[in-house]
């Protein structure tokens, strides 16, 4: 199977429209086809995934090309920290063939929020116990 998701750009403001095209060519009949807008976490914790919107593509053919469109949600924005990163994605799911996805950025200023800001740590933890645990 060959499948692609084509997007005019990869980074979006919350509230902005995400439009693109999904195209595929498969060796067997496609029972269902849908495009999903989702986020997933990466990093030290076990992965969490949230599907925010789904567009079902009616009467999919074995070789087909369909437009899709979503509105980028306001939350959660893409971010990257020391333990956790949150990444948005668009995924084309063809049953029974499989799926393909692309990472995108949804965040204010079209830029992933970084949690690495030393200036945000204005003080030490005043609790000795919590300070020890953090070390």
């Amino acid at each position, binding site marked *: 199977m060959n499948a692609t998701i084509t997007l005019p750009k990869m980074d979006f403001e919350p509230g902005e429209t995400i439009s693109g095209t999904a195209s595929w060519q498969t060796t067997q009949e496609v029972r269902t086809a849908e495009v999903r807008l989702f986020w997933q976490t990466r990093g030290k914790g076990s992965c969490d995934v949230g599907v925010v919107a789904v567009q079902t593509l009616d009467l999919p053919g074995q070789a087909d090309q369909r437009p899709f469109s979503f509105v980028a949600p306001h939350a959660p924005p893409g971010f990257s920290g020391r333990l956790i990163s949150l990444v948005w994605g668009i995924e084309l799911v063809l049953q029974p063939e499989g799926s393909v*996805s692309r990472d995108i950025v949804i965040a204010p200023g079209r830029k992933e929020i970084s949690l690495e800001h030393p200036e945000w740590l204005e003080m030490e933890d005043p609790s000795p116990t919590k300070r020890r645990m*953090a070390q």
Partner: protein
Amino acid sequence: MLLDCAGMGPTIQRGTITGARSGLAGRFVGTLFFGIFFLAGLLFLFLIGREVLRTVETYSWPKVPAVILSSRVVEEPDEESPYSVGVQYCYTWNGTKQVSDRFQRSRQRFSDYSRAAAAVAAIPAGRETECFVNPHTPEAVLRHGELWIGLFALIPLVFVLIGAGGVYACWAPGKGGKAAPVSDGNKGGGSARWFGLLFVAVGLAVLVFWYLPNTLQGLASFSWVEKPCTVESSRVVEVDSDDGTTYRVDILYRYEFQETQHRSNRYSSFQGSSSGRAAKQAVVSRYRPGSQAVCFVDPSAPQNAVLVRGLGWEAAIGLLPLAFIAVGMGVFLSGRSKKGSAATLLAAAPEDLMDAGSRLLKPRVTPLTRFIGMVFIAAFWNGIVSVFLFHMADEWQRGHQPWFLTLFLVPFVLVGAAFLFGAVYSLLSLANPKPVVILTPGVLTPACAFEVAWSLRGSAGRLQNLVVFLEGREEATYRRGTDTSTDRHVFARFVIATVENPLEIAQGSARRSLPPDIPPGFAADNNKLVWSLRVHGKIAFWPDLGEEFEVQVAAAQGR
């Protein structure tokens, strides 16, 4: 810095799908492996289920009067469980007098003579009682039998679940061949929760049905009556199990109590088998057939007696059920689904979360809840450990030297002491002043100003200072084997107020604004960005005031 999602989730693929496909041979090997698991489990499940059903069936049989003709303990010395109830009774069915020798539908065997003797004592010859007659065949039983054997079905059930799950995984779409959609996520948490519950159930069953009764009997045996006894037979019994051969002591002795002769083969309160034949052989050598010894008899149930009273070191092994329960609870709690999934929670636009008014903040954990929790944990842990401490102290007082038990208990005692310290610390914290905090607006927004107003209820004069700050941290929960851990990293700590004036400590307020590029709060099952408002006060020679309040930070408006 971006870290990889260590083996937890599928990797996003770009362009053409090239998901790894396991070959057909691999699937067949996997199917064979898990199929054996499944079939073996199913076989044992069937055998246990059949026994339970046979027992359940007797409950529907009509009850008829019966008279016991004879009863005795039957011995078959070559068996692992050599004792059973031998009984003859007569009853009348359809006008015909019948004689039966069936005690239960399935023959019940005992490794403990006193249990067989107790069953026999309840049906002496000549007693008028009732039996249950199968209306379809000439078959009768005196007792229904025990249904708790059905609990053992949990063990083969695990095999069946693992086997069925494994076979499914070999052939399921997206597992054996096709790449699974990334957005389907990791759906393995459900089975982990069930395994956690199974651990808890097994631990509780062992604790309640085996460990606690034996422990209580062992402790009660200190007040039992000492009597001379004569050893009738002594041997080391080999017990074959899945884990190999284990051994137990089987010494049958007779004794007199209140002019009645009894027999018992109970050596101590914990009668299980374990590895190491030599130690058991040494015990058996001390009790040769025909020799005289001393036993301890339960005056309220004289058929119960032991040769060694109290709790042996084997009793310490019984703490393992606690570990089962703890691990099971950990797995279950870490895998349980949370209210309001992240997808639902976070689909809301910031304006939906905005609350123009003020909000009285609630503490994440109240001092009273913390104290009750610590007391419960300390009482539960130390209550069980204290049983062994008393026994150990008693052993030392008697001049024995239970070094193994003493060393074994050291870590358990240290953990118990830490729990006690925590309970005392949280008790002292209850006397601290209670902060009441009002946040305006109720939901914070990046780049927007906010105000925090506080007042302390109680003896605020004891505080040397007060620091109010907003803290943002990442919380990542992950599993490693059966352990579940949560790592935390504080990425922001914004000072709102630092006051040392007693009047300002007791009541005050402060304003500030947040940077424009901070992230909003985020809460998924395993990953969180938590914002909290913390109030910390230094108190001399006393636990500090430390309260944490949950704060909502909404997403920034688009620029």
